[in-house]
Structure formats: structure tokens, C-alpha cells
């Protein structure tokens, strides 16, 4: 699945995390110019736009992506309760909206429904990398056809890493994206879980997760072998 457009950049952390958990890839944009610049080859899969911080800029961005030859859809708008009157006469700018602060479950359900209605690809079913397969529907993981017995956080960490092969993540990033900011354990939690994952992957596959000295961790190689 191509990534969703996310506005603004950086997006609110709870939004980024909710999309990660729901298995939607995304890219954040800061303005109309970067919508074009960052657009994936096959186009944006859809968009989630937060209008609760800077409504003017957000609505202007919506207008520009809806005016293209092929209007960007589906588009989910996040607004605060006080902004509900602003939606009037702007119906063409969005396909659905969600009240902010949002409930992650509601956001996920609305996106799922939007994708169902527009008949576009829903969220990816599988994450694959060499012998590793993660089924996002059933939460199951296997390597070389052998099921891996993972705890939930091990599964989420592996899913996150395997969805971004070749990319180096700092401990802080992993902690905020996989565990969420309020998490208790601190950045060392990441190290502990990486070791647990390596132990479960077994000697043969432990090398899939590499330690990048004084930076963080990287899973496998990027698809372009960079």
C-alpha cells in the first residue's frame, strides 16, 4: 500500500502512533509544495489532515489536493468540537471527519470504512522480508515457515522494523512510535526487547536486526540495497 498523506509535519505523535498500530504507512507534509515533492510514484493512498491547530492552512491544503486533476481521496479531517460550524459549506473538502482528540479505535474504523467505500486497497495484510512474514490480520509471525511466539510488544516492534527495512531508528524514535510516549520503561526497554526478539529469531536470523553503534537499530537492508 502507498503511504497516506499526513498533515502537518511533524504530525501529532498520537496520530502517528495510531496509524502505525493500524498498519497504515504514512508520510507527513508541511505545506502544499511538499505534497507534490513527496508524492509516491503511484500517488497518495489517501490523506489525514489535522485542522485543529491551524485551520486556515489545513483547509487551504485540502482545497489544493482536491482541485487536482485526480482529487486526492479519501480524505479524513480531524477537527475540534468547536470547529464543527467551520465544516459548513466545505463538504467538498473532505470525505469524512473525526473529532479531535480522537479515539484511536474510531479513527481506525473511519479509515477502514472510507477505504471500503472508495474500493481502494485497504491496509496491507502481510509484511514480508526475506524469510520473515507478519500477518497483520491475525497478529501471527513466522520465519522460514516456522511460527514465532512473540509477546505483543515484540510483535509490534518487529512489525515496525520490518515495515521500514534498511532504515535506522534511534531508541527514542522506536520508543515513541512503538510504545507511545507515556511508556514507563525508558529507552533501555528498546534494547531489552531487541535482545528478546533476537533470541526468539534464533542464531540464524538474529542478524536481521542490526545494532548501529551510538545511533540505534536497523532491520535488514533497504529494498534498493542502499
Amino acid at each position, binding site marked *: 500500500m502507498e503511504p497516506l498523506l499526513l498533515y502537518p509535519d511533524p504530525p501529532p505523535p498520537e496520530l502517528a502512533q495510531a496509524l502505525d498500530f493500524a498498519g497504515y504507512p504514512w508520510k507527513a507534509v508541511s505545506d502544499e509544495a511538499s505534497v507534490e515533492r513527496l508524492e509516491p510514484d503511484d500517488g497518495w493512498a489517501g490523506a489525514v489532515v489535522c485542522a485543529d491547530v491551524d485551520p486556515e492552512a489545513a483547509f487551504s491544503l485540502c482545497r489544493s489536493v482536491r482541485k487536482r486533476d485526480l482529487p486526492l481521496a479519501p480524505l479524513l479531517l480531524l477537527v475540534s468540537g468547536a470547529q464543527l460550524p467551520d465544516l459548513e459549506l466545505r463538504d467538498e473538502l473532505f470525505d469524512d471527519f473525526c473529532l479531535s482528540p480522537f479515539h484511536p479505535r474510531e479513527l481506525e474504523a473511519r479509515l477502514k470504512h472510507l477505504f471500503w467505500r472508495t474500493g481502494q486497497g485497504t491496509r496491507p495484510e502481510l509484511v514480508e522480508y526475506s524469510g520473515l512474514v507478519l500477518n497483520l490480520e491475525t497478529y501471527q509471525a513466522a520465519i522460514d515457515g516456522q511460527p514465532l511466539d512473540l509477546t505483543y510488544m*515484540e510483535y509490534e516492534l518487529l512489525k515496525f522494523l520490518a515495515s521500514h527495512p534498511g532504515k535506522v531508528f534511534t531508541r527514542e524514535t522506536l520508543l515513541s512510535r512503538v510504545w507511545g510516549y507515556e511508556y514507563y520503561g525508558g*529507552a533501555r526497554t528498546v534494547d531489552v526487547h531487541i535482545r528478546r526478539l533476537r533470541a*526468539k529469531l534464533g542464531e540464524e536470523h538474529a542478524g536481521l536486526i542490526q545494532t548501529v553503534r551510538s545511533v540505534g537499530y536497523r532491520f535488514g537492508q533497504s529494498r534498493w540495497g542502499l
Partner: protein
Amino acid sequence: MAPMERHQDYVLRTVEERGVRLIRLWFTDVLGQLKSVAISPAELENAFEEGMHFDGSAIDGFSRVQESDVLARPDPNTFELLPWNRGDDVSARMFCDILSHDGTPFEGDPRQVLKRNLDKAHERGFQFMVAPEMEFFYFSSGDASKPLEPLDTGGYFDLTTTDAASDLRKRTIAMLEAMGIPVEYSFHEDAPSQHEIDLRYSDALSMADNVMTFRLVVREIALEQGAYATFMPKPLEGVQGSGMHTHMSLFEGDTNAFHEPGDPYGLSKVAYGFIAGVLRHAPELTAVTNQLVNSYKRLIAGYEAPTYVTWARNNRSALVRIPVTKAGKQSSTRIEFRSPDPACNPYLAFSVLLAAGLKGIEEGYELPPEAAANVFELTPEERAAEQIGSLPQSLSDALDAMERSELVAETLGEHIFEWFLRNKRAEWLAYKSQVTPFELSRYLPNL
């Protein structure tokens, strides 16, 4: 979905997908024994939402005067498929928090005691990291009426039997790793048939859960192969006993709060305060880290176990040792507390060690000078001059010290503190009333 719901959802789906038949809900009594209630997948959702009712009156340290019903609520983050008995009978485990009827944490639950103390550390910005070295013996059987037969000797060919024991250890490590408990080192210890497996550091709550799992896995694998594994602190006279040397550090976010580059020992003020805290309170907390009559037969001179309250860098008779950290490995800066034994309740032991360390940091305790020589070689007068104190000599001494300790009472909570003292006094009394073979052989011929 909220994080907790996702955790639960993950567990429910995995149970369904993997055909799990039984879910074992694990919890720990005050003495550190693992308890288990098995439920079927159909009951799981309810267990998450409401908890499972059970009668706590039969559990050591759980009973109360008014009501004995408690609730066990599984922690979905600890869900693991059990790697043994695979085949038709797929089962999984989760550790539980024990709640009172009104949903508040039950004060007799050791896991909640540790959680409460970790919360306190967290409020001060610290994460408590722990790595224990687990020592144990393999014997040919656990029958106490017969003389103990170590697996390494006892009539077999040495080569074969040495292999048998290391094969046991290898199988154990494979099983631990499959359960997400990474192993740092493992080796044959000094005594015959004694082995050591060192666990990789983790946050203290996961580590206490790991220690409980570890003891079960070691014993299960041994039984499977017709042998017997024991964590009894001193099963054999005249050789080393089994310890649980505990490596500890505090982290503030990504940095090791024990590390200070300019210091001659590489230690920070926080580290010195922590060491001073565990040293000053060591006699009071020893009943918790060494809770058996038998524990004190290990804490004697000559077997690499500590008996005096000292600290040092490279002196293995010291109570607190500062392991040398390699250059560039600052994050592994830590202290090693050497008195605990593997028969302790890890939740309570980690709790009292953390509380003592934090107290030292907070009150700015001054650290006594490093023990230079081998403390065992000093005369009592020299020790007195250097103000070197002793660890309790017996369970009875340790209980006396604990009873006077405000720190331990506060750390464990009134319920566990009182129950523990009562239970252990009874154990001491039962021991004291025995007439031992030692007394008969020593006194009878001449008196």
C-alpha cells in the same frame, strides 16, 4: 484501540490462531513460590475484564481476617506460549496482578509491591535495571531421605556425565531464549554439579517474572531428563553454595545514571548514594534476600559468599562489587550485590534493594571507604577499628534486624511485613527445636 485493549486483542487472537487449549495464570506467593490457575480460552476475555475470583486463604501470605476472596487479573504483556509439551496440548502463560474485591491492588501480592516501588523510582526519573546470576545444582534425585548424588560424579564416567549436565544446561538455555529470556553466559560452577546461568539485564519487573520462569524451566527440563535441579542455597556441606548475585543500575532516559566519566571508578554521585544505601540497610533487608534457615549456611567465610558489609572493585568477598566496565561500554556501569540467594522471592528482593539504594541517594548517605584487603583476614579488632559491620549470622538475627527496619516495613507494606516475620519466626522455631546429628555426635559420647 487503546494500548491495553490492543494487548488483550493480540492475546485473544493468538490464542485462537495457535489453538491454545489452556491458559495458565501465574502469580507468586509471599514466600516466592509460583502458583498457577489454568483457564480455558472461553474464560479469557472475562479474566481480562473482571479478573478471576479465587480463594486466597490457602495461599501463603494471602489470607486476611475478614475476607479471603481475591481476583487474579492477567497482564497481557506477559503472554507467552509455553515451549514444552507441544503437540496437541498447546498452552500459554500470563503473570497476574492480584486485586482485592474492590479492584484495588491486593497488599499481599509481591508483584504489586515491586510495581509500587518501581513507580516511586519512576517518579524520581529512574528506571531500575537488574541482571541476576542464577546458580543451582543438579542432583540425580530430589528425595531428601537419601544422600544427595551430584550428576557430575556418583559412579558414571566423568566425561559422559559432564556431558549430560551440560546438555541439560544447553536445553535449558534454548528453552529460555524461546521464551524471550536472553542468556548472557552459562558455565559449570566450582562445586560438583553446580551450574550458573547469567541473565541479560532487563527492567526489574520483567526480570522478577523472568526469575520465576527461569526456576520453573530449569526444574522442568531436569525432570524431563530424569534429574533434579535445586535452588536451595547450600545443599552440600564443604563446597560453595548457590547465590543470586544481583547486578543493578539506574537509568535516566537513555543514560546510565551510575556512570560519571571523570570519576576514578567511573561512578556517579547517584551510584555512590545507591551503594551507601544498600550497604547501610543490608542487615535489615537480608531476611528478604536470604529467607531460609539454610541461606545462612551459605553466608560463611571461605566460599566466595559475603559475610561483611563492605564494597570493593575487585574483591569477591565484598558484599558490593563494582565490576570493571570496558571502554565505550558506559551503559553497562553497574554494581553487583552478592548476598542474595536464588531461593528468595525476586519481587520482594528487588523491591528492598531498590528502596535501600534510593534512600541512600535521597538522604545523601556517605559511602564508607573501599575495603582494601581481604576482609576475612582481618582480626575482629581491626574490623571494629574500620567500622566494618557483619551480615546477620542466622535467620533469627536477620529477622531481628528486619523487625526494627522502618525502610523494609514501608517497602513491603504492613501486610507482607507482618506476615513474613510471623511465618519466618515459626520456621526458625521449628528449626531450633530440632536435635541435630551434629549435637549427638559431638556431645553424646562425652556427656
